[in-house]
């Protein structure tokens, strides 16, 4: 038992905390001062558009399946050209925990997280946002991807018209 060490160990923290008492706090005074979040920060969720301006979301429900708090709901519908899209799409930001799993699950790069973290509102209904609130005019983080160019079922282009496809076969042809 090293008494001297114990006494020192007991008194030293007092000296250190006393020192800290006179240092300038590191707190950022939020409403007056704001910090710039990094670009990949996970805050407000948006729906992006394809490079050609069409909606990227195909309402595949993977985001709502991935969502651990069930804050995303939607209904899929079919357009005249066979394109699947969300007839309505709702995110309840009052429930959202900003985990970003929806953006990770999205196969079409439609749903993305942005650094806009100032979402708070006293009216809960304003936090329940519909497709028109979520949809932005832009591609977000990926400026080139267009899902239907790669899907292989001929919505954006003619059937068999995408670059990695042959044209439709003729099953009644007699060539072996």
């Amino acid at each position, binding site marked *: 038992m090293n008494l001297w060490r114990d006494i020192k160990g007991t008194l030293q923290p007092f000296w250190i905390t006393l020192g800290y008492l006179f240092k300038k706090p590191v707190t950022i005074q939020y409403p007056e001062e704001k910090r710039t979040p990094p670009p990949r920060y996970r805050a407000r969720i948006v729906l992006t558009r394809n490079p050609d301006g069409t909606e990227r979301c195909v309402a595949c429900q993977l985001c709502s399946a991935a969502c651990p708090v069930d804050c995303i709901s939607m209904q899929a519908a079919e357009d005249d050209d066979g394109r699947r899209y969300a007839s309505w799409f709702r995110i309840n930001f009052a429930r959202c925990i900003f985990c970003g799993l929806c953006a990770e699950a999205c196969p079409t790069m439609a749903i993305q997280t942005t650094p806009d973290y100032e979402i708070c509102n006293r009216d809960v209904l304003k936090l329940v946002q519909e497709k028109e609130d979520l949809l932005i005019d832009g591609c977000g983080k990926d400026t080139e991807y267009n899902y239907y160019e790669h899907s292989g079922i001929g919505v954006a282009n003619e059937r068999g018209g995408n670059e990695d496809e042959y044209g439709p076969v003729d*099953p009644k042809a007699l060539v072996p």
Partner: protein
Amino acid sequence: MFQFLRLEYKGLPYRWTQHDKRIVFYVFLRVSVPPWRIDLKMPKLTIDNLEVTVPDGTNVLEAARELDIVIPHFCYHEALGSVGSCRLCAMMFVDGPVKGLQMACMVQAQDGMVVSSTDPDAMELREHVIEWAMTNHPHDCPVCDEGGECQLQEMTVAGGHGVRRYRGKKCTFTNQDLGPFVQQEMNRCITCYRCVRTYRDYCGGTDYGVFGSRNRIQYGRFQDGALESPFSGNIIDACPTGVLTSKPFRFKTRLWDLQEGPSICPHCSLGCATIPGGRYREIQRVKAGINRETNGFFICDRGRFGYDHANHPERPRQARLDGQPVTVDAALLAAREQVAAIASKHGPDSVAFLGSPRSSFEASVLLHDWAKATGSLQLVYEAHQGRDRAARTLAARLGKQVRSQEELRQSDLVILFGADPLAEGPMLALAIRQAVRNGGKVVVIDPRPVALPCVAKHLPLPPERLSEVLMALGKNDLNAFEADERSLLESLVEQLKVAQRPVLIGGADLLGGQGVQALCSAAEQLSSEQRSVGVITMLAGPNSYGGALLSGHGPDFDSVLDAVQEGTVRALVCLESDPFREARDPARAQAALGHLELLVSFDSTANLAAQRADIFLPTRANAEMAGSYVNNEGRLQAFLPVIDPGVPIRETGAGNHPPREFFQTTPGSAPEADWLLLAGLLDRKLNLVELRESIERDHPQFAGLSSITAETTGVRLTARGDLPPAEEQELPHAATAEALTLMAITGQVGSRWLAHLSSPLAATEPQPYVLLHPELAAELNLATDERARLTTHFGHCHVIIRTDEKMLKGLVMVPQLWDTALEGMVPGGLLDCRLEKEVQR
């Protein structure tokens, strides 16, 4: 030693090989052991170090499934059998009678087999096979309806194929329009042949098949057009990936969001197992459930696409009292008090109770209890007199002769008397087809051109002579028949003599009470000690049999109508039935029921009774409640709720997002299960378990009710009903010289109320038509597809002429079609009519 077996082969002495000797020895052993010494072989094999004993004839894939070892596979299906074409179920046979890498579905389990599903070679093969299957598969899972329940997705993950290596171009195909039920996306096809095996082999469809070769294989019809088979929806279930998906369900919901549960189909009396799925307060699809005793693995299109009546926009969801919306409790109280008031004022028999073949068995029992508590003897379970009498006769007569669908599939001789399975119980037609595939024969004795998905002999006879045939067959006395009829009947008698498992099938519409009586008697007379002749009768609804068991000696609805007309019956309680349109003579019913003082209706659809009721109580649709039905063989089966009722979000949101207001209660959630309403009315505040127990206590003949659970094969009730009171002999229909005889029938589509309310099926309903023999059409100077004017005592209507060679010659047939001019053509009776060519103006 084998000297006595010296044989010559092409003039030379045959050299017996060791193998030949072994075969002879085994044959000798088998022959020498008497049959009662051969014990049932139960091979015992080892799969992944676990031992399992299975019945002889089981393949290794099934044996592994017994151990909960899932072997990836596409082409194998229990009902379709194994073909070994997908090469995915490879397993390594380490030791035993078979060795090496084999397809598990193609190898029968044998004693001493040691099998490994995790062998590196087998795993590698599976990985390559799945990679191969995936080479041309598009990357469109996000927009594919199969996503979430895609066997290809699962097998790709299970097979270990993660990263695509093939960098070449993919094959693409053109899609076909396969009609209103099935959506095709041919690019996704992995050529497993399951759709063709289901559609052509199992269901007997002829208009769908496979074209081309190698990587040009295309499945489809010769040209675009709706699939003809009434079982076409089964290829949706069969397809392991998203090539064939449901069109009404297109883009509606992912599997993981769907609330599903085991249910029983409410559309006919066969009691097939179904799995409805619902989301956002609407039933969105129905999948085939598995019940090996009834439907097996498939269901008909009526059952599959007939779910939409629960989401009907006009469905009444609010209790009403004298036209004013009230709470359910208030309406219940009013119903109880007003019924009691009328009963005390005018005597108990002034209140009549009309049950329904589509209410749950529990509710039917409670209606019986209510009638008993009131003291009324006016209790009927079916508004249609003929169907009611048929069901009650069947419930009284049926004993050991009753047959299930599974027994029908094993039958070797099926005789249909006045039964049109595709109209009255489509899955029975599929069972008959399986009987034919197993080597059975089918004979149809019917005035209608009964279409079956199999080969059948057909003898057109007028409906009133069906009973005559049955009696003649039973007594083996065919003298009353004409020569051409007699030849077929004589061969039938011969076949009946040798058949081991014959089944007689009747339909309630044509046979009526007397016909069913004759059918049961014939079966009894034809039965011998060696074999029993089975009977199946198709009734009107899922719980016709249950209602018939409860009817007792009560009157039929026509005599209730008489009493209403006379004024002795002043109040009518309708439990999910529509006496205005379902009675045998709707015109008479509507006239009589106008005299009622009080009409109480419990219903889940907007039928006339619900619209005109003084007191209306909304009930739940089949998929929204728990309960049970007794099917046409007396099988009691339970079903469970899938969703709670409410106005679908599709409607409240008008296609856009759901409204941004919030309520304490769901809009349109007032409907309650029919049995719950009746239990509340009778002050029996019970849950379903307690209710079933109390029914068992009060009605000992329904023992077993409290022990049934959903998703099982159900229990067959041993209870017997009572025969209906003797029927007043109706005068035989005498056709006047000028007029034709018109017979109303149940059509394949459009004749069933619930199915008619379902929009996917309603879209396929035909224009009003009449069916007649081509010769008769020629006599009347009418051509097929021509428009004609049909005149009956109801008035005129315009119909389209259809002809069929198999029709009875002197008869014109017209289907009952709801919400058309043919709505009043209730099956079961003959009318006079005139049919004239439409005059072009």
